[in-house]
C-alpha cells in the first residue's frame, strides 16, 4: 500500500508543472475564467502545445506517437493540468483517445493502429461515437443501423443519436448490424467511417441547458472501406462493450481531480453567501469531500490494477454510477446554497457540458444552474444509472439476469 506517485512520476510531474507555468500568465486564475465562447479555442491551443512537447497520450506505445509510459503518468499530467487551471484536453479526446484509441490498441490491426493513432494524438483527426439509436438506448444490442459489404466497401444506412462532438468530428466509430439473421448480440460490427461524405448528415440537438452539445447522425448510403472494420465482422458487441469499459474506467482518477476543484468552488460559494456556518451545509460539504476523495482512491485502485496488468472490469460501471449520482447530489447542494438566486441565471455559463466546469470558474448562478441541469444527463448517458446497477448486481454480485421477454431476437 502506497497510494502516492513514484519518485519518477513525481519528478516528471514537477518538470511538467514548470513547462505549464510558461504557457500561461503569472496571474492565471484558470480556464474557467474565460468566456464560454473562448474556451474551446483555448483548449485546442493548449492541447497543441502539449502535443508538441509530447504530453498527449504519454501512455501509448512509442510506435504510435506515445511515450510508452505507465498510466500513472497520465494521472499525474491530468492532476497538474487541473492544479494549474488548464483544460484536460478537448471534448473529442474522450472519444478519440480514451475510447477509440484504447480499443484500437486492443483490437485493431497493425495497419489501423499506424494509420489512425498518431493522427488522433496530433489532433489532426477528431473522432465521435455512433452507438445509441432512437429505438436503442439502454438496449444497445438492438441497434438497427445496417451495413452491407459491396465490392470492398461498407454501405451504411440508419441513424445514430446523442453523438457528442459529431459536428466537429472527422471520423465516427459506428456500431452497425451486418448480419440481420443472427441473434441480437451476434450480428453487430464496429466500423470506422469518415464523416466528410454526402451520405452523412449531422443535426445538432439542443439539450436541457439550451446549448447544443449532442447530435443526430443520419447515414444514407454512407460508405467506408472494408479495411476500416474494427475487430472481426459480427464481433462488434464484444469490441463495443470493451470500449465502453474504457469509457468508464479511465476517467475515475482523473475525474476526481476535477470534482475536487469544483468542490473548492462550491465552498467558496457557501462562504461568499455566509452559508458555510450552517450545520446542514457543512455536513453536506463534508460528505461531498469524502465522496470525492473516495472517487480518487477508487481511481488509484483501478490504476494499480492497470499497472499490474489486471483489467478493471465491471468496476467501471461503479465509477460511472458513482460520479454521476454524486454530481446530482453536489449540484443539488449548490442550488440549496444559491437559495432564491436559482431563479435567474447570472454571469458566465460553464464551458464544459458534462461534469464539473473548467478550473477557476466563477461562482455565478448561471454556471451552477447550468451544471445542475446538465447533471441530469450524466445519469443517463453512457448507460443509465439503472443499467449500471443491473451490471453491478450481475457482474460483481453474481445476481441473476431478469427473465427476458424474448431471450434472443432474430432479425
Amino acid at each position, binding site marked *: 500500500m502506497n497510494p502516492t506517485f513514484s519518485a519518477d512520476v513525481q519528478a516528471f510531474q514537477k518538470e511538467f508543472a514548470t513547462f505549464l507555468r510558461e504557457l500561461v500568465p503569472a496571474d492565471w486564475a484558470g480556464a474557467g475564467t474565460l468566456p464560454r465562447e473562448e474556451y474551446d479555442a483555448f483548449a485546442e491551443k493548449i492541447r497543441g502545445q502539449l502535443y508538441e512537447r509530447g504530453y498527449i497520450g504519454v501512455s501509448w506505445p512509442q510506435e504510435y506517437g506515445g511515450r510508452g509510459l505507465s498510466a500513472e503518468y497520465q494521472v499525474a499530467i491530468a492532476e497538474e493540468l487541473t492544479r494549474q487551471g488548464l483544460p484536460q484536453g478537448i471534448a473529442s479526446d474522450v472519444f478519440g483517445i480514451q475510447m477509440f484509441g484504447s480499443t484500437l490498441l486492443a483490437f485493431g490491426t497493425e495497419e489501423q493502429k499506424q494509420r489512425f493513432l498518431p493522427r488522433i494524438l496530433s489532433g489532426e483527426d477528431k473522432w465521435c461515437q455512433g452507438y445509441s439509436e432512437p429505438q436503442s438506448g439502454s438496449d444497445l444490442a*438492438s441497434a438497427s443501423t445496417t451495413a452491407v459489404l459491396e465490392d470492398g466497401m461498407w454501405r451504411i444506412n440508419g441513424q445514430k443519436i446523442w453523438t457528442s462532438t459529431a459536428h466537429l468530428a472527422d471520423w465516427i466509430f459506428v456500431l452497425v448490424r451486418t448480419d440481420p439473421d443472427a441473434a441480437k448480440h451476434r450480428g453487430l460490427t464496429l466500423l470506422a467511417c469518415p464523416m466528410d461524405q454526402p451520405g452523412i448528415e449531422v443535426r445538432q440537438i439542443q439539450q436541457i441547458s439550451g446549448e447544443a452539445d449532442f447530435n443526430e447522425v443520419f447515414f444514407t448510403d454512407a460508405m467506408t472501406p472494408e479495411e476500416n472494420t474494427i475487430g472481426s465482422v459480427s464481433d462488434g458487441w464484444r469490441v463495443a462493450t470493451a470500449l465502453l469499459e474504457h469509457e468508464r474506467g479511465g476517467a475515475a482518477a482523473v475525474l476526481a481531480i476535477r470534482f475536487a476543484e469544483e468542490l473548492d468552488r462550491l465552498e467558496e460559494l457557501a462562504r461568499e453567501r455566509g452559508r458555510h456556518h450552517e450545520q446542514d451545509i457543512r455536513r453536506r460539504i463534508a460528505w461531498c469531500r469524502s465522496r470525492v476523495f473516495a472517487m480518487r482512491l477508487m481511481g488509484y485502485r483501478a490504476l494499480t490494477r492497470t499497472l499490474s496488468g489486471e483489467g478493471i472490469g465491471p468496476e467501471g460501471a461503479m465509477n460511472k454510477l458513482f460520479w454521476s449520482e454524486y454530481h446530482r447530489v453536489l449540484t443539488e447542494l449548490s442550488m440549496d446554497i444559491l437559495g432564491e438566486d436559482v431563479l*435567474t441565471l447570472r454571469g458566465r455559463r460553464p464551458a464544459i457540458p458534462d461534469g464539473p466546469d473548467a478550473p477557476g470558474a466563477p461562482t455565478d448562478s448561471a454556471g451552477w444552474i447550468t451544471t445542475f441541469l446538465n447533471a441530469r444527463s450524466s445519469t443517463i448517458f453512457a448507460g443509465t444509472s439503472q443499467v449500471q446497477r443491473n451490471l453491478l448486481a450481475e457482474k460483481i454480485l453474481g445476481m441473476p439476469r431478469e427473465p427476458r421477454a424474448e431471450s434472443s*431476437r432474430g432479425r
Partner: protein
Amino acid sequence: MQFSFSREQEDLRSSLRDFLSRRSGSEARNRVLKSGYALDRGLWDSMAQQLGLLGLALPESVGGSEAGFLETSIVLEELGRDAYAGPYFSTVAASWVLQHAGEDGATTLEQLASGSRIFTLAIADEGGTWARPGHRTTAFEVADGHRLAGLKVNVTDADTADEFVVVADLPDGPAWFRVAADAPGVSVVMGESLDLTRPIGQLVLQDAPAILVVGPAAAGEILADVNDKAAVALSAEMVGGADAALRQAVAWSLERTQFGRPIGSFQAIKHMSADALVEVETARVLTQYAAWAIDERTPDRSVVASMAKQAASDAFSLAAGNNIQIHGGIGFTWEHSAHLYFRKAKATSALFGTAPQHRDRIADLLAV
C-alpha cells in the same frame, strides 16, 4: 367530515382542464420552448372574461364570483399541470393586497378581474426575502401622493405587469403601494429566468409616483397573509406540475420498449414512479387542507402553508427529475417539455421560501 372537493369545484376543475387542453397545453409549451416566453393575450382575456378566473375570489361588485381560495388553488393546480405561461399567480397574488384598498381600489380590482390590467407583487429588496423584504425601498409623501425609491428583486412577471404592488417603508413602517409600469422613474430589468414560463425581473424605482394601498398599521399582517397564501398557491401549482410530470413519465414508460418490453414493466421504473406518486399525494392533501385553512382562517394556516410548500417542492423535484430519467436521452433535449417541469420545480421551490426555509418555519411555529 368531508375531505374532498364539492361537485361545483370538480366542475370548475374539469371545465378549466378542457379549456386548457383546447387553448393551451402542449402547443403552448412548444411555443415557449421554440421562441421563448410571450404572453398569449387572447388566452389571457378568455381566462379572465370567459372563465372568470381572475375575479374568481373577488367580490361581485368588481366583476368577481366570490369564490374562495380553495377554488383559486384548483385553478392554480390546473395551470401548473399545463405549465401555463402567463401572469396568473402574479396577478392573483397582487389582488390579495389590492382587496384591502377599500373603496378606492374598486376600479383597480375591476381592471384586474377583467384581465385588462396585469399586476404583480414586488416585495423583496436585494438580500431580502418575501417574508422579510428588508427596508431598503423607501416611500415619501409628496403633494399629490407618494414617491418610491429602491430596487425590488425577484419580481415575477415583471415584464408583462402593467402595475406593481410594492412594499416600501414610510417613516412609521412598511406599507403597500401601487406603481404603474409606465410611470416616470419606473424601469424593469429582466433576468434570464430558470423557469421558462415565469419571467423574473428587477424593479428599479427612482422617485416613482405611487399610490398608497395599505398603510403601516395593517401592512404587516397583510404581508404575513400574502406569504401564507403565496406558499399554498405555489404548492397547488407544483402539485399540478408534479402530477403532470409523473403522468408524462408513466405514459412514456408504457410506450417505450427496451429489451423487448415496455420500460414501464421494469421494477426500477415502477418503484420510482410509485415513490413519486406517494410524494405527490402527500403534497396534494397538505395543499388541499392548507387552502381550506386559508379560507377558514384557521389558527394553523401558517404552519400548514409551510407544510404544503415543503412537500410540494420535494414532490415536484422528485417527479420532474424522475420524468427526465425515465425518458432517457430524449428527456433532456430542449424540445421535450420534461425540462420545462424540472426547471419549474426548482424555481417554484425558491419562490416565497425554499423547502428548508419552510421546515425551519414549521419548527419555529410549532415551538419545537
